[in-house]
């Protein structure tokens, strides 16, 4: 505890004299080593310029640490996932390996669309208890967007599958994990429970062949296909640079036994 508790090694409590930069540099190295050891990191991360912090994880941090109590202006459009976080002390965000997306022979997009997530950086001692796949729906402005409109025009069915075997000749063997019927008159994030698949890949060490997402427009008007749910950068009619913030996000909730769960804290 003493090594963790007083993060500043003994020397830190004496006045670090300005004319001895070597001492302060050593002090910082000691402090950094202590911090990295607690993070379970071998070396200090050097994030690349392309690193993206999903807004969802930033909002989770603010809700959990009580920071949002001080910043009422910032509205968070989801409820804190109490159930998932009550059993987890670690939340990780994953984007899919975009370079592994496969087009069909005729250049069109397969449906369902397959997403591969590389979960290899989850430590062995971290037990995943739940996982969610978050997809962003972009509102489509047309006649059916009128909230009073109840026809089938604006309805889409989103199916989430686990891919059970490596795809062969464009065919994939899947099993359904979650499904939802949505109307395209609003923009919002949808969260799907993919915990059973992620637990098979992490806890049971089964092969991870990825997830598959199928979006069916109910009355099959081709005009609407692929426009409402943001599942691929190039599928979106208007190429936009907000893809990094609106691309599919896999979130895992795990516990490594080293600290209390991420239950919400009131600001001290």
């Amino acid at each position, binding site marked *: *505890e003493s090594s963790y508790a007083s993060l500043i090694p003994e020397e830190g409590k004496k006045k670090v004299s300005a004319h001895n930069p070597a001492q302060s540099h050593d002090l910082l190295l000691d402090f950094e080593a202590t911090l990295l050891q607690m993070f379970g990191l071998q070396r200090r991360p050097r994030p690349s310029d392309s690193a993206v912090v999903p807004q969802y994880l*930033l909002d989770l941090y603010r809700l959990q*640490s009580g920071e949002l109590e001080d910043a009422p202006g910032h509205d968070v459009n989801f409820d804190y996932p109490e159930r998932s976080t009550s059993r987890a002390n670690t939340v990780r965000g994953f984007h899919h390996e975009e370079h592994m997306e496969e087009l069909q022979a005729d250049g069109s997009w397969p449906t369902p669309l397959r997403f591969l997530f590389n979960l290899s950086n989850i430590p062995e001692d971290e037990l995943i208890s739940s996982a969610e796949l978050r997809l962003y729906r972009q509102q489509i402005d047309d006649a059916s967007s009128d909230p009073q409109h109840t026809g089938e025009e604006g309805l889409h069915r989103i199916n989430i599958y686990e891919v059970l075997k490596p795809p062969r000749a464009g065919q994939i063997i899947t099993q359904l994990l979650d499904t939802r019927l949505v109307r395209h008159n609003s923009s919002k994030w949808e969260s799907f429970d993919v915990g059973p698949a992620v637990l098979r890949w992490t806890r049971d060490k089964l092969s991870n062949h990825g997830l598959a997402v199928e979006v069916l427009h109910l009355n099959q008007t081709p005009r609407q296909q692929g426009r409402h749910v943001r599942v691929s950068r190039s599928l979106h009619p208007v190429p936009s640079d907000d893809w990094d913030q609106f691309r599919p996000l896999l979130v895992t909730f795990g516990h490594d036994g080293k600290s209390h769960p991420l239950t919400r804290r009131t600001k001290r």
Partner: protein
Amino acid sequence: SPKQRGRKRNRNCRRHALYVDFSDVGWNDWIVAPPGYQAFYCNGECPFPLADHLNSTNHAIVQTLVNSVNTNIPKACCVPTELSAISMLYLDETDRVVLKNYQEMVVEGCGCR
């Protein structure tokens, strides 16, 4: 005198403020939030087992106690007695974002042990 007493109190074991500012040490490129945090630390003397001023009491029991202290026993140390956690949002070595709860990051209380 009050002034003298004030100085004496400050020397005893207690919690001292210590704000760890991640941008000061260049870690704000991988630690997304918080920008820093109040870590605190414990420092000060532990006039344990008996406070020195007791020696001025001439009561037999106190004198016996004061003079029976084995001076070879090391003094008690000023250490954290109560700690709390903070959660941190950071980028790991693979550019992935992690939100994690860390135990024993903030010193809430100090004591002589």
